[in-house]
């Protein structure tokens, strides 16, 4: 088999080829294939509350282009979205809206907290009456990105990290589903 390069499957695919009489068989686990497929097509929700949203838009545009990694289909409705990127400050008034958006997303769903505001309330606004001190007070977060705002490359890195996390079945959503079995 080692010599037959045309039969080699990509390294990123979670499976192996076993030769049997007359043909070859790919052996894998269904969960792994599902996670592999899901991780390569993640539709983000069009959602941003402040300046991090500008960086997010830049990542969507031609220069950085997150469609290279399978994130191109930004959805304006949470019912069709797989990942919500919390790009900006969440204030007390926005918190119930964020919770509702998250609840409306179909399983499996993933959350990225982008920037200092989404992580901890932000460098400027944390000591006020109105700001939620971290979006994870409202919904569970899978990947955090530091920065104010983070570089577009950092968001790309976070998206790829999320893909790795999904492939290994380690997102909060997947752990929750497995725990219910």
């Amino acid at each position, binding site marked *: 088999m080692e010599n037959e390069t045309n039969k080699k499957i990509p390294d990123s695919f979670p499976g192996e080829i076993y030769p049997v009489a007359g043909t070859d068989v790919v052996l894998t686990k269904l969960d792994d294939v599902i996670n592999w497929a899901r991780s390569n097509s993640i539709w983000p929700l069009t959602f941003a509350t402040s300046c991090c949203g500008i960086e997010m838009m830049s990542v969507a545009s031609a220069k950085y282009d997150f469609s290279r990694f399978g994130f191109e289909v930004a959805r304006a409705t949470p019912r069709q979205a797989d990942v919500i990127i919390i790009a900006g400050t969440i204030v007390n008034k926005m918190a119930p809206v964020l919770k509702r958006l998250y609840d409306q997303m179909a399983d499996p769903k993933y959350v990225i907290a982008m920037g200092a505001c989404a992580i901890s309330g932000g460098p400027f606004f944390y*000591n006020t009456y109105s700001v939620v001190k971290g979006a994870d007070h409202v919904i569970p977060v899978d990947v955090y990105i530091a920065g104010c705002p983070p570089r577009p490359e950092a968001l790309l890195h976070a998206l790829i990290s999320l893909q790795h996390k999904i492939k290994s079945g380690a997102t909060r959503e997947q752990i929750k589903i497995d725990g219910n079995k």
Partner: protein
Amino acid sequence: MTNEDLKNKLTELFPSATFEEGGEFINFFIEPSQWKSCAKELKEKAGLDFDYLFCVTCVDWKTHLTMVYHLSSTIHRHSIVVKVKLNRDQPEIDTVCDIWKTAEFHEREAFDFFGVTFINHPDLRRLFLTDDWVGFPLRKDYDDPINMIKL
């Protein structure tokens, strides 16, 4: 009108006004009791025609509150800033929303965050905060032991 001309004109119209130097705009202070008539003049006086109120804010100086009105004229393209000092314990000032309609929401905002009472305002309710909110969060002595740390 240039700032120089504006200043001369305003000194003539409002002899009790005091000017503050060193900004992009002409700044002047006026007494709260005179504010309403002053606002009418600024809007209607030919040559001034301040028909656009583009910003209403309040500043808490701990000793007093200052209302700040930014006015502009779409005809003459000149702008001024009018400031009115208010008693911090009982801040009251006449509304100008019958002169500039836009003031209605701006004044509600100032009421919401600073607790300034606008006399004769048609609908003085909280704007951004909930109706049952206690206190005025943009005042310097606002206390919120749950969300804020003392500095």
